[in-house]
């Protein structure tokens, strides 16, 4: 177990640094094993520095910056061992439009590098417009969900409730 975890740590750390720079358009980031000499018992700390800012612990970053950092980590792990399916439930909620666009660029990159199928649950119009296809969930009868295939115009109307 120890060797495998250390090998995985190296791959994920390299992916994480690349994806962070990709999502923030610059800056630096890396993972550090802390709290124990033994990797099987250690903790994972995240050090990051958005472009133009001082090195910060995760807690000083803003809500949107923390989301982008966490997404970099999730995709770094995912690239190390791609799954057949990935579902993201409103991960773009704290992001402004510029960062939503970078998030969608990253999704496109993932579909090029892996054969993973993605289900993206979102309220963001920018994200909707970047999908290959859209499903709408409605409750025509209160309390009863129905699934319909929709186009972009209809999807935006659905979210407007």
């Amino acid at each position, binding site marked *: 177990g120890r060797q495998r*975890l250390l*090998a*995985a740590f190296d*791959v*994920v750390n390299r992916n994480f640094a690349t994806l962070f720079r990709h999502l923030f358009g610059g800056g630096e980031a890396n993972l550090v*094993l*802390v*709290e124990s000499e033994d990797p099987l*018992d*250690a*903790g*994972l*700390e*995240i050090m990051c520095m958005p472009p133009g800012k001082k090195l910060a612990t995760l807690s000083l970053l803003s809500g949107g910056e923390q*989301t982008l950092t*966490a*997404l970099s980590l*999730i995709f770094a*792990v*995912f690239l*190390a*061992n791609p*799954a*057949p*399916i*990935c*579902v*993201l*439930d*409103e*991960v773009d909620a704290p992001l402004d439009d510029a960062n939503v666009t970078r998030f969608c660029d990253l999704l*496109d990159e993932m*579909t090029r590098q892996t*054969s*993973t*199928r*993605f*289900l993206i*649950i*979102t309220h963001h119009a920018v*994200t*909707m417009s970047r*999908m*290959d*296809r*859209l*499903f*709408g*969930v*409605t*409750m025509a009868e*209160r*309390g*009863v*969900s*129905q*699934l319909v295939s929709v186009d972009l115009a209809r*999807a935006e109307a*659905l*979210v407007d409730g």
Partner: protein
Amino acid sequence: VEFTKLRLTGFKSFVDPTELSIARGLTGVVGPNGCGKSNLLEALRWVMGENRPTAMRGAGMEDVIFAGASSRPARNYAEVTLTIDNTERRAPAAFNTADQIEVIRRITRDAGSVFKTNGREARARDVQMLFADASTGSHSPALVRQGQISELINARPKARRRILEEAA
């Protein structure tokens, strides 16, 4: 293996049989608050062998059975089917005899839940192994629950390490 279809009947707010086809690339799911989007992710986790009721946001596992609405009575069972394309024959040996694998999970009130793969009854453990070998499963880091991102940020370093173990 490729996931191609998810079918729900009586699972949470999806009382009528509902089929979600899972195609390549990016599929968006949209809709107003409370319409049932997050319930779809839970149906996927559940059919892959999730056994913690809290992961279904409920107190007990029977909370996944349609509890009724103003226009409909409660149901007695919930069922989810996941269809997997196995033409490349990469599934574990026990499941590798067919081009397509259908995993079904069904829970009936007061009778517990049962798994079937291609029509034959299977143990939860076997189903969980099938998905673990395919680098997925109910605990996969590629399944990100609503609000989970902020949990990852606020987690203690030792709890965060667990995400690395999935990559190993």
